[in-house]
């Protein structure tokens, strides 16, 4: 397309024209309209922050619940934890969420280790990732006896 020029010699592109002005007005108006619709919609879709129940400690089990070389999962806030009694009778607690892809792990008595069924990941009794794909050890919790209750708490 050949560029039109006006009688004063200025190229048309820089000359304010009524059509150009109306075009900008219409385009700006439509953009503003779409923006004022999309903004609330996007904000609506993003879920609001819900206060997570952050319990500092929880009763994971009673003293007689676990025999040596066994384990069980328990609810810690909104996430699962795992309580393990080692073959020597010691209690240990970890986050039960596998560090690989967030499956929930379980205690394998035959292997005497913590095992993730999803991708065959294995953690030792200190929570260290010893086999399979998990990249990090399990988060370890503190275990304390209070009467006959086994209390698990997060490390600060």
């Amino acid at each position, binding site marked *: 397309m050949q560029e039109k020029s006006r009688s004063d010699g200025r190229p048309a592109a820089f000359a304010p024209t009524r059509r150009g002005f109306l075009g900008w007005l219409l385009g700006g108006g439509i953009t503003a*309209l779409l923006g004022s619709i999309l903004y*609330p919609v996007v904000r609506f879709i993003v*879920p609001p922050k819900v206060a997570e129940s952050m319990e500092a400690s929880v009763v994971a089990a009673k003293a007689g619940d676990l025999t040596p070389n066994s384990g069980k999962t328990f609810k810690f806030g909104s996430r699962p934890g795992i309580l393990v009694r080692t073959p020597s009778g010691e209690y240990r607690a970890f986050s039960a969420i596998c560090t690989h892809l967030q499956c929930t792990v379980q205690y394998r008595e035959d292997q005497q280790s913590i095992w993730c069924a999803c991708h065959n990941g294995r953690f030792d009794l200190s929570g260290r990732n010893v086999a399979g794909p998990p990249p990090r050890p399990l988060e370890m919790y503190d275990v304390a006896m209070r009467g006959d209750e086994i209390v698990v708490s997060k490390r600060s």
Partner: protein
Amino acid sequence: MEIRPTERPNWLAERYDIAGWIHFLQKKAVPRHHASVFYFLGGMTLFLFFVQVATGILLLLYYRPTAEAAFESVQFIMTQVHFGWLIRSIHSWSANLMVLFAFLHMFSVFFMKAYRKPREMTWVSGTILLVLTLCFGFSGYLLPWNTLAFFATRVGTEIAGALPFIGKHLLHLMRGGEDVTGATLTRFFGFHVAVLPMITTALVLVHLLLVQIQGMSLPLRRDGSVPKEFGKRMPFFPNFLARDALAWVVTIGILAALAAIFPWELGEKADPYASAPAGIRPEWYFVFMFETLKLIPAKIGPIDGEILGILGFGACGLLLVLVPFIDRSANHGRWSLGFTIAGVIALVYMAVMTAVSYLMGGPS
């Protein structure tokens, strides 16, 4: 190098035969006369339906359809979710406006006798769409699971249950049991978000297709004359569509203003064991039927007054659907006075009954 637009290789045109479509859009025109403004009512109803679909999908992200969680989830939308109050209020306001515009559309088509041959099926599909719209309103009203919704649903389904022969089964089917419970809520939810949208979308497509095939109807004049102005036409694209779009933008503004100034109330959570609050009445578009059933005597001769009322409304609905097949005069291009009078009577009856309910129905 210069390429003319017509010679530019078109990705779509090389693969699909779109020339016919483009030609159709270019030559599509809308009659332009003193009553052209009524052509916008259908498009407005359709636009409000789109608003309902969009806001409805958004509400689905947070809504939970159980008796235990429904009220709380709507409360969560109204108080916690960003702009949740806006989305829900627009959904409610737009629903009411959609019913209003569907009625306006229907009456304008009725009085201009646009249902006459050859547009009978457009009318039939339209009246069914109106009924579906009312079903949307009825089923959606229950979803927040508040006191008003609970009793409105109880009364509404009970009315259907009064029908002879099929009433009992219909009642059971609608409630998902003997009473209005969480089972009813889940059922109404399924209808509201899946069954009704599916049927409505299909029927809207048919309705629109018929309008596209036959074009707009010209109003039938009382003296049978065809004014000169009926020859005038406006291109649909972009002239008519631009006017449509302007109306839609204004509607969005009105919806947002209504939602901001009058956010839709949530009320109190439904308690199946609490008494119905005084002044309870259904949504405004059901009020004329509600008031009729309230005023009708318990017994008319040997027949239950209520059943007579319900059957009467059913018969009127059926007549409405069949209008183009009954109105022979209009089909022959003659202005049918009887049908205009019947329409006016129906309109006056609806207005009076609604007014009676709101003016004399006690505190609301």
